[in-house]
């Protein structure tokens, strides 16, 4: 069984999406030029999600990747909802009031986000009312609180993450009279998702991360080479600080059971996540909700199962770590990707491949005949060879696709091997997950001119 190159391409490109920030008067005033994103499923259906949107009532752009586990319900919900929570957290008091008044009097709402979605990225229609009500409660509380202070992006991100996780948990506890929705909110709460979100506004880049996805900045050195700067901390067993944090939060008696086989309570890879109420709720609460829940839930061994050594919940939090970075002209792009990418490729290679892709063939030394004796035939051979070398770059119109091609198809020499690519992509569904994970990538390209100009102003 063998896939032809066009077949490989159609698989790789099925989910690709590109967005270019529109230009005004021939100039792009945003520090973001645009982004490319793509995902390649290993699970069926895929459990990763991605989101991108422009904030309309404040400045800035939001981009995020979400890696779901135990199903895709939680990742789906977070991908739909998190940006609204962040946007609302960033809104000034007056705008919140305006929005609330509009809802109250049934007027048209100010649009908060402009989404940039691939046709396959869907929103749940059924739950939108429920989600909206939770969000509205959140902004009503913000209005009541009215701290009067200007909103700090770091705080807004942290609040939004925590609030959404809290709402997910509450909705599952309260339930819903509609049986479909009732099952949905429980699925969301019992599955889990990590989130890695970037907020870009001018030269201010904030990365909020919960879990083991990662944000890497591509920096072009003066000599033209590429280096990678990681802008997030993985929340897993490899991160000493994270292990330390978990241990601090629980009695000494539990210490040896907290992390087993590099997993939280021997079960969960990421140490922070949305949903996963099995690691957050008390045993009583879990039992009550499961028993009163629909049959599907009751019949599900996974939801009924209580983690071993479960004494002092919660063991898990959705609170993100936020890193702030001032963008410089040499910061050319940002790669947000789920762990599916990072476990196959080193960040240094990622930065190089994307960097070389984005700058195109300009890097290949031009040929000059000069005083040499070259025949037309020789030149023709030389050019044909050069074309073949760069054609793998030209095949992709999307940096994320290009990266996936390398992640899946790279041989030991670091070049794409078509045979390998074909084999990896033609694996049957049940085997695919053994060889690779879902991969979701967003490559954000920065506008060095704008960033340079902003810097000079400051």
């Amino acid at each position, binding site marked *: 069984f063998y896939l032809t190159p066009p077949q490989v391409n159609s698989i790789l490109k099925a989910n690709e999406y590109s967005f270019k920030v529109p230009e005004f008067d021939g100039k792009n005033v945003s520090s973001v030029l645009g982004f490319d994103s793509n995902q390649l499923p290993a699970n069926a259906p895929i459990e990763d999600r991605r989101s991108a949107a422009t904030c309309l009532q404040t400045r800035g752009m939001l981009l995020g990747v979400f890696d779901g586990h135990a199903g895709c319900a939680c990742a789906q919900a977070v991908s739909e909802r998190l940006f609204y929570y962040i946007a609302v957290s960033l809104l000034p008091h007056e705008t919140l009031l305006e929005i609330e008044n509009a809802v109250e009097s049934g007027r048209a709402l100010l649009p908060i986000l402009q989404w940039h979605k691939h046709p396959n990225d869907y929103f749940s229609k059924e739950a939108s009312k429920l989600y909206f009500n939770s969000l509205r409660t959140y902004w009503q509380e913000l209005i009541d609180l009215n701290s009067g202070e200007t909103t700090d992006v770091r705080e807004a991100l942290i609040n939004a993450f925590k609030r959404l996780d809290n709402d997910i948990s509450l909705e599952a506890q309260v339930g819903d009279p509609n049986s479909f929705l009732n099952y949905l909110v429980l699925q969301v709460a019992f599955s889990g998702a990590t989130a890695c979100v970037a907020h870009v506004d001018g030269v201010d880049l904030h990365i909020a991360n919960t879990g083991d996805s990662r944000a890497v900045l591509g920096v072009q050195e003066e000599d033209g080479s590429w280096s990678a700067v990681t802008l997030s901390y993985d929340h897993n067993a490899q991160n000493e600080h994270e292990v330390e944090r978990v241990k601090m939060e629980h009695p000494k008696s539990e210490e040896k059971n907290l992390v087993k086989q590099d997993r939280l309570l021997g079960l969960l890879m990421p140490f922070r996540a949305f949903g996963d109420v099995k690691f957050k709720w008390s045993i009583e609460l879990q039992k009550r909700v499961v028993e009163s829940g629909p049959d599907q839930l009751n019949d599900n061994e996974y939801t009924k199962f209580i983690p071993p050594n479960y004494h002092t919940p919660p063991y898990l939090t959705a609170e993100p770590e936020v890193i702030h970075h001032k963008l410089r002209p040499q910061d050319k792009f940002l790669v947000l990707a789920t762990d599916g990418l990072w476990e196959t490729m080193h960040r240094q290679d990622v930065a190089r491949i994307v960097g070389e892709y984005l700058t195109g063939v300009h890097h290949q030394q*031009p040929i000059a*005949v000069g005083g040499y*004796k070259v025949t*037309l035939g020789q*030149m*023709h051979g*030389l*050019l044909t060879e*050069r074309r073949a070398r760069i054609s793998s770059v030209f095949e992709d119109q999307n940096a994320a696709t290009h990266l996936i091609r390398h992640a899946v198809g790279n041989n030991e020499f670091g070049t794409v091997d078509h045979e390998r690519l074909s084999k990896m992509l033609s694996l049957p569904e049940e085997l695919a997950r053994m060889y690779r994970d879902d991969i979701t990538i967003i490559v954000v390209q920065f506008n060095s001119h704008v960033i340079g100009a902003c810097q000079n102003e400051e």
Partner: protein
Amino acid sequence: AAGMFLRLLSDIQWRAANPKWRRMTSSRRSTSTTAEPHPVSLPAQAQVVICGGGIIGTSVAYHLSKMGWKDIVLIEQGRLAAGSTRFCAGIVSTARPVAIELKMAHYSNQLYQQLEQETGVQTGYVKTGSISLAQTQDRLISLKRIAASLSVMGIPCEIITPKQAVQLHPLINIHDLVGAMYVPEDALVSSANVCVALATAASRNGVQIHERTTVSHVTVQKGRVTGVETDRGRIQCQYFVNCAGQWAYELGHSGEEPVHIPLHACEHFYLLTHPLKEPLASSLPTVVDPDGRIYIRNWQGGILSGGFEKNPKPLFTEGRNQLEIQNLQEDWDHYGPLLSSLLRRMPGLETLQIMQLVNCPESFTPDMRCIMGESPTARGYFVLAGMNSAGVSYGGGAGKYLAEWMVNGYPSENVWPLDLKRFGTLQSSRTFLRHRVMEVMPLMCDLKVPRWDFQTGRQLRTSPLYDRLDAQGARWMEKHGFERVKYFVPPGKDLLDLDHSKTFYKPDWFDIVGAEVKCCKEAVCVIDMSSFTKFEISSTGDEALESLQYLFSNDLDVPVGHVVHTGMLNEKGGYENDCSIARLSKRSFFMISPTDQQVHCWAWLKNHLPDDSNLTVEDVTWKYTALNLIGPRAVDVLSELSYAPMTAEHFPSLFCKEMSVGYANGIRVMSITHTGEPGFVLYIPIEYALHVYNEVMNMGQKYGIRNAGYYALRSLRIEKFFAFWGQDLDAFTTPMECGREFQVKLEKGMEFVGQEALLEQKQNGVYKRFTMFILEDHDTDMDVWPWWGEPIFRNGRYVGKTTSSAYSYTLERHVCLGFVHNYDEKTGEELVVTTDFINQGEYEIDIAGQRFQAKAKLYPFSSLFTQRRRKDEVELSGYQRE
């Protein structure tokens, strides 16, 4: 062998090799050319200042001075022949699809041939001939069409087999060829030397040439050129000629009053090689392989080969830029596909050694045709630029036409296809030009099929109904930036197929347009005609009427509410414009002209109307949406919508009235159509457009209304024998020659432009006659379709060319329109064409080398008209070009 190459690259050395030039210039300049950069100071004034010392500028100077103008200064920022001219491939090729371009190239060839003898400057002229190769049948058809044009002009040419091609040029690989065209008189020249020869001759005739002088801007006062500012001082002048090549756009924009010259440069590459082991003969024909996108000529025993790649590299978008000039280097990766193509065509060249890959920018225009003529805003400001990489082929002829234009007021040929005024400010955006030339440059080699539309620079001007029509399946074409519907694809049809209807044969929209035509004849159709140019002319007193009576040949002193079809003629009686004019009130007129008249007509009115503050002319094109209701039921739809009787008694044809349609008031309704079918045109203030359209469509349901496009309109107007300006009519055609005497009121009691010429024609007869041809033995399904420009033969002898053609769904035959001349059998002199001459002849039309019998008619079929109409109004209504 490398000597010539060095000459190409080094002016200094080259000058030394031309003692005649040095002797002449030094005697004029009184000092040696090498020591002093500016030996002679600029004159304070001159009649003409030409900017640009390339082949174009020197050709203009040469021809002006030949025609007797002596007070001419030519200014060049660097050295003569140092720009694109120096790097030019030097191929003089007459195989051009556009007739006027073909004539220019033919003249250039004749001029260059005798230039060496005339001036004593070696031009390197060699008559090598050229072979154009066809890899496909469609390409062969297009070559056959060109061959037909060449033959009737008396230019030898021949369609040959691949085997014959290889006999002419032994290096050609013919395995993938279906045929070729051989033009034995095409030539090669050294373009730089031709340029210097022209300069030499001009200089002898008194033209002053100043090198290393830069024009900073041109000064204009009261709409007239007054002088030129240079880095060496000011020259007062009456005429300025912008021949600045790829810098012409910038130069045009440098003055206070910008002159828009839409062109944009692209990099252009060609390869030079060392000689072959057995050097190629300098007489070996040039090979053009358009399907392979390349041309190959012999050069110094080796070859010179360039081409037009699919992915051109535009440059100087932001203007002249030193960095970009420095970066103009060999780009082998970019040239790669052309090299593959070259080796495929001539595999024997594999072992040939490379000398250099030359990168020489060429300027391209939005429609692949060069730019010639006078600025619409600054009188005396002439332009000749944008040669689309054919500067050498066109240079001689283009210079001649422009010189005639300046000296005589108009060239000796119709150059409207090249006229600067076919463009406006709207084609002047750099973004537009950059995108468009990236499409145009590859097109140089693409197959030119009928009804081709540009893909870039679209959706610039649109009707307010654009989205509505688009949603109903409209397919679009563009005219002067305006999107117009070709036809509507019915739901369920395969769209992909329709978008690829590029063929010389029956196109796949055939049945779609047929259905639209049928609906126009039997029920009612709506066509959005908003693109047409609309002017309002009014005055406080009688000035408007008086001036229009002078400018137009028909009588405009008609009762208020009448519509008059009339030509706007030049002194020779030729059509500068063809329009309908409605008298809105005693003192105001509403004038409708073809879409691409917007700039030309405006300039003509500005130049010919008296400078009178009581008289106002306003361009209201953008204010109105025009909907044309065509068909026998149009009257029913409109009367139901307006609660007004619309029958012929209440609303006779050629009548104009403001009325309400639906809720909208103030809709200007005219009982004219552009096809001869009964119907109305509604001029709707744009804010009402959607409303009126919706009302018309809703009300029209019961009468079977549907949308229609321009292809249906075109078929209808051609089968009715309606001439359209810009296609059938031009500045060299008078009303007398196209059966429109009735639109000329010689006795209207007032003098008007062109009156004398028309009187003379009336007395002496005409020398060409607009005629309609019905193709007899043409198989619509199987034969190549006529387009325009096909030669017409009468009793086996060439008498003229067609100007437009269409399939008539009513006659179920092809109809061609064209002009018949009467050339004396012996002398070739043009004789009077009489009705008898037309009627007593056997006609044939040559379509791509195949002749079809045709029946000639001077009047349309009366049976085509379902309704009884006023005697002359049928022809009256046909005035517009599609």
